[in-house]
């Protein structure tokens, strides 16, 4: 944008500022996002509205353009860094103001896999969508996953792998959950570059999620179904 430097965020109307923040997120402009978040909060916006209307909505555009091959991983990472900076301001406020809670997720990359970019994006977008996320980090053994499930009692277990050699470990985790009679207690979502829907089905996951946006939508729909089942 040619006149980008001339834009003074505090002089924009709310609607203009939100659109500008979508642009800034797209361009990975961390400081501008922090400033935009602060301005909206000063204007009396709830932290939840800032999160959903400015950050999550902006990141959804980034996600769609990544899926369509318009944006690539480096640009998505820059956008994610900017969103993370905005979320850092909002997180303590969200806790105070009691934003809607969608459910809880335990997530981590599987044993032998250190590639966590996709997993981190999913964790961030899930938090943005109102899920509480317990991130186990990288290289998780079946014992670590099960320990976390016991301790955290989440709705969802998310597993991620980038390597063809490590993705079969997801089946080890799911099979162990079955052996222990705890598989049905959790929604199991899997993702990672070499995975596909067929693999997800074959290992007994509830769903394969192609990207972070799909993970959020899938998680929402499974959690809603689970709650309906409990309510019925």
């Amino acid at each position, binding site marked *: 944008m040619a006149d980008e430097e001339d834009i003074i965020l505090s002089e924009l109307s709310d609607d203009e500022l939100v659109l500008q923040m979508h642009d800034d997120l797209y361009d990975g402009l961390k400081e501008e996002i922090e400033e935009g978040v602060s301005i909206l909060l000063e204007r009396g916006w709830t932290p939840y509205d800032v999160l959903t209307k400015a950050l999550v909505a902006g990141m959804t555009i980034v996600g769609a353009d990544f899926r369509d091959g318009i944006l*690539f*991983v*480096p*640009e998505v*990472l*820059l956008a994610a860094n900017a969103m993370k900076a905005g979320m850092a301001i909002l997180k303590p406020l969200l806790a105070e103001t009691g934003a809607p809670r969608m459910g809880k997720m335990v997530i981590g990359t599987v044993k*032998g*896999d*250190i*590639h*966590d*970019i996709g997993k981190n994006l999913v964790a961030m977008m899930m938090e943005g969508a109102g899920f509480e996320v317990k991130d186990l980090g*990288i*290289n998780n053994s079946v014992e670590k996953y099960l320990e976390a499930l016991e301790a955290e009692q989440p709705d969802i277990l998310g597993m991620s792998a980038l*390597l*063809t*050699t*490590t*993705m079969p470990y997801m089946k080890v985790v799911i099979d162990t959950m079955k052996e222990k009679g705890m598989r049905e207690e959790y929604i199991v979502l899997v993702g990672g*570059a*070499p*995975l*596909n829907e067929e*693999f997800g089905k074959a290992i007994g996951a509830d769903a394969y999620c192609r990207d972070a946006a799909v993970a959020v939508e899938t998680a929402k729909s499974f959690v809603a179904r689970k709650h309906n089942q409990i309510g019925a």
Partner: protein
Amino acid sequence: MALSAEVTADPALRLPSDAGLTEEGMQPGLAGRVLLLACGALAHEILALKKANGWSHLDLQCLPAKLHLYPDQIVTAVEAAVLERRADYDQIFVVYADCGTGGLLLKKCKELGVEMVEGPHCYSFFEGNAVFAEKAEEEFTAFYLTDFLVRQFDAFVWKPMGLDRHPELRDMFFGNYTKLVYQAQINDPALDAKAEACAARLGLAYERRFTGYGDLATTLTRVAE
């Protein structure tokens, strides 16, 4: 598919530059009974083996090495090339391992009735699939480069990851790695020095390991026979 050199039976005359192998691949000579349909990253190694063993009945076509940046495109490109070339040869052998396709390339090759190299990727078959698998437990924090990838480091690693424009992203990509292992197919001090420089740019410890051609040699020997 755009191919960069004219048809000639002599592979040495057809071999494009490394940049050409990355971007466009290499067309076949349309000579020989068996077509090796390979990744551009393997062209030098396959031609070296072909020359050393006198495999004149093996022809070579390479698909662009950059397909590795989008592994789903490998399956489509291999299928298109097999269908295009199968009438010209008695046999086509696909010189790709799984290469991040999550089993889809193997499935496609079975559908097409062609064989491919065993293993997850070239780092594995250069080292030897069995040895690589044994080491996996203790070496999963290693980032591997082959001769080709050392030569094409900027085109294959640095630029596609946006590190030329955003070096601050380096640790998001490589922060969980502990070392760079250069799997050397040949002994070349210049490549060794470049690989070490690559490790420094990524902020990783450096290790050089001579692998030669590993399982690629045994696999192609079987195909040649």
